């Protein structure tokens, strides 16, 4: 009866499954936020494992901005169906009515579609716990985030009022109206995510792999012209071999030029590269503490 040392991925998987089951057991109405990115893909995969042979006992919620890549919408619908889970898509009606878009409205776009949209969706459906795919290694203020992150009835995150988390004991109790965001893959790094996707054969959006795609360059970011809503300012889209390290709204997500067409090649490039993951996203660039400010306002 010799004991085998579990690999780091096996330990991370077991931890995440444990967290997901705790929430299912203790929350009244949990939901899994699903953004179709690689972190969401891993989180969904872990949820399926946690409850196999049953489907996960909660729905997937996509807070949509209407500006995601077309490939993302396609995978989203398919993945939910294959998991046997309900897919809820929420679009902020006010943003929809006002035609808020990343080209004309800048920061307001993220604020209304994502930050406000998420709060509205949670209130609308009455969810008291929401799984998110955030990781502690993404950004400095996230290094201190709890796995169970407590939010007031106004969805505010108070960094000073977070509960101590000891061992693997999570306190999921809350008053009516209050909610928790739960991050089962808090302790995973970007490399862990890629290795796990590779090892488990998890389907991801093809945009993570390099292909010739129509692009324009603006403010130093390589942007993909994903549909005909992209306002071209006399520019002619150029076919470039690009892939994406993170996926968000296509007009806000910078691509990298790459020839990595397989997962191992992507990992190889990632390991040899020298820029951190969130740099492809426009929202983080303003100031060092920007994420902390956004979180206090209710951004995931």
């Amino acid at each position, binding site marked *: 009866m010799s004991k085998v040392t579990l690999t780091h991925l096996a330990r991370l998987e077991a931890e995440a499954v444990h967290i997901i*089951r705790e929430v299912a057991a203790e929350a009244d109405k949990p939901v899994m936020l699903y953004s179709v990115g690689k972190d969401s893909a891993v989180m969904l995969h872990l949820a399926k494992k946690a409850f196999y042979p049953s489907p996960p006992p909660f729905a997937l919620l996509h807070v949509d901005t209407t500006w995601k890549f077309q490939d993302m919408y396609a995978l989203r619908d398919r993945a939910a169906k294959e998991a046997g889970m309900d897919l809820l898509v929420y679009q902020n009606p006010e943003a929809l009515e006002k035609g808020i878009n990343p080209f004309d409205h800048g920061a307001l776009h993220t604020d209304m579609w994502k930050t406000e949209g998420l709060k509205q969706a949670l209130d609308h459906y009455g969810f008291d716990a929401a799984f998110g795919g955030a990781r502690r290694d993404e950004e400095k203020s996230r290094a201190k985030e709890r796995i169970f992150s407590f939010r007031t009835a106004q969805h505010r995150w108070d960094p000073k009022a977070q509960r101590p988390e000891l061992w693997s004991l999570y306190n999921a109790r809350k008053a009516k109206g209050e909610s928790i965001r739960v991050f089962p893959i808090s*302790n995973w790094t970007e490399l862990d995510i890629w290795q796990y996707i590779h090892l488990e054969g998890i389907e991801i959006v093809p945009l993570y792999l390099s292909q010739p795609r129509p692009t324009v360059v603006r403010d130093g970011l390589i942007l993909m012209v994903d549909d005909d809503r992209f306002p071209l300012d006399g520019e002619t889209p150029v076919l470039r071999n690009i892939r994406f390290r993170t996926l968000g709204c296509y007009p806000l997500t910078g691509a990298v030029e790459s020839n990595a067409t397989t997962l191992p090649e992507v990992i190889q490039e990632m390991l040899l590269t020298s820029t951190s993951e969130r740099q492809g996203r426009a929202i983080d660039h303003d100031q060092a503490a920007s994420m902390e400010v956004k979180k206090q306002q209710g951004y995931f």
Partner: protein
Amino acid sequence: MTDSSYKTDTLIAADINAYLEAHQHKSLLRFITCGSVDDGKSTLIGRLLYDSKMIFEDQLEQLEADSKKLGTQGDEIDFALLVDGLAAEREQGITIDVAYRFFATDKRKFIVADTPGHEQYTRNMITGASTADLAVILIDARKGILTQTRRHSYLCHLIGIKNIVLAVNKMDLVNYAKETFDQIVEEYGRFAKEIGIENFEALPISGFKGDNITALSTNTPWYSGPTLMHHLETANLEQPHDNQEAFRMPVQWVNRPNLDFRGFCGKIASGQIRPGDEVRILPSGKTSHIDRIVTQDGDLDLAQKDQSVTLTLRDEVDCSRGQIITAAKEPLEVADQFETTLIWMEEEALTPGRAYYLKIGAQTVSATVAEPKYQINVNTLDHSAAKTLDLNSIGVANITTDRAIPFAPYSENRELGGFILIDKITNATVAAGLINFALRRAQNIHWQATDINREHHANLKNQKPVVLWLTGLSGSGKSTIANAVEKKLAQMNRHTFLLDGDNVRHGLNKDLGFTEADRIENIRRVGEVARLMTDAGLIVVTAFISPFRAERDMVRQMMQPGEFIEVFIDTPLNIAEERDVKGLYAKARAGELKNFTGIDSPYETPENPEIKIDTTQMDIESAADKIIQVLLRT
């Protein structure tokens, strides 16, 4: 200064598949760094991240810019800025929470809990330590062992970390002097032994300069031990007895997709399990055998500690969330009273007697904490009396749960012996607790809801509550008569309770001696208990010498009018001394017992007792009958 073994670029570039294959077999080490900002903790972590290539170019650029603006290292890179996270903390220059950092080498992935070192952040340190396999205790070589070094070491030891690394930092500022290092190690060794740390690894390092971090430094030619990174990569994660541990798995979730499948989901807390193994479910005690270990990737032949699994059983036995599946032959203890060590984590202090939620494993129960036995000074390790526990204080207190729970002492298993207390109103996590052992002698304690008053209690019992207070010399026959009275009342379907000098002094009043002050307090407490029992509708029979009139009157005043019946068991001293059933008079005469009633402490005879029993004239049966006659008349 960077060791070539940490440069894996060549392999990554040449054969990514080989690299991935190698890296899928890495293990995981979680460790905590303890020390203050001044000890160079953040700098050390920054250095580890930097040397293991976890810092990207854009982060490095930002770091260089920040170092010029905010840094404390002149023109050099201030690694501390890499890890000081929240904006508020960066301004204050201190780390106030637990931050988790990640890095990896060829051999291991590491999760570092970065926690503040000041005493007011004890809770943060305990939190970070609770998931750590190893602790790095940082010491500033210039300052040597400080109070905080002792505190950090004690807390790591308390929370059960077996691997302790003493990192003597800032060696560059003491000219890499061997004598300084040796002296610190020797002193620490003495202290470690005192608090029960069996062994530790000591290293001379400089986080700022990078000495002995990833490569042995030429500045310390006298040091031939491992580098810090090498030690972290090779530290033994398994406890010696891991292989022999019995199987335990708290049930988190019952999986019922259809009527034919019932799976019990949980993370294995200890041991191993195979299909066919006999298991026992606690606290019910039912047994069955494992049928399958179900996973999405196919059934397993074996599952072990730290894996999250789904088990099916051969028999239809009741098992729900919070119960624990254990090896049938080696079940866990089940108890509802424990001695625990508590670390208080909330601004609002502990209220002894108040009900909190207690979460242990997958179970949440209601629990009350008694007044602490003592508080531990985390700096001196002295014990002191305490009525409560404040934020960041550590104490030992008994806890009573509202139902029996399966557990293991914390020293045996963190998952089965560690718990949190949750405030029932604010839902805040107020304390972390470690079960030391179960208490068996104590009885269940129940707090009465006050909506139901004493009349309700008495009416339900169809009786009038009363206290029969038997007083008299030692050996006068109080206990014997009281016992006879209670037996007769029980036969009459009366609800009674006997409070006896001996049984009360073993529990409630075990802290009291026989001085006059203690005797008064003894009677006062018994009186209060008797009063509560009459509130509960009981007929209380007490048997205490209670030699002082004033105290007997004090108790009389506590009771409702007419509910106190004083019974004087009148036995002359010479007869009581002749009986001397417990041999106490002989001891008192020999001077071995001080303050003995009738010998060197007075007995004040009752002036107007409701009942007087002359034991020289009356046997036990008649005495009991006489008392009951009076009782029935009231």
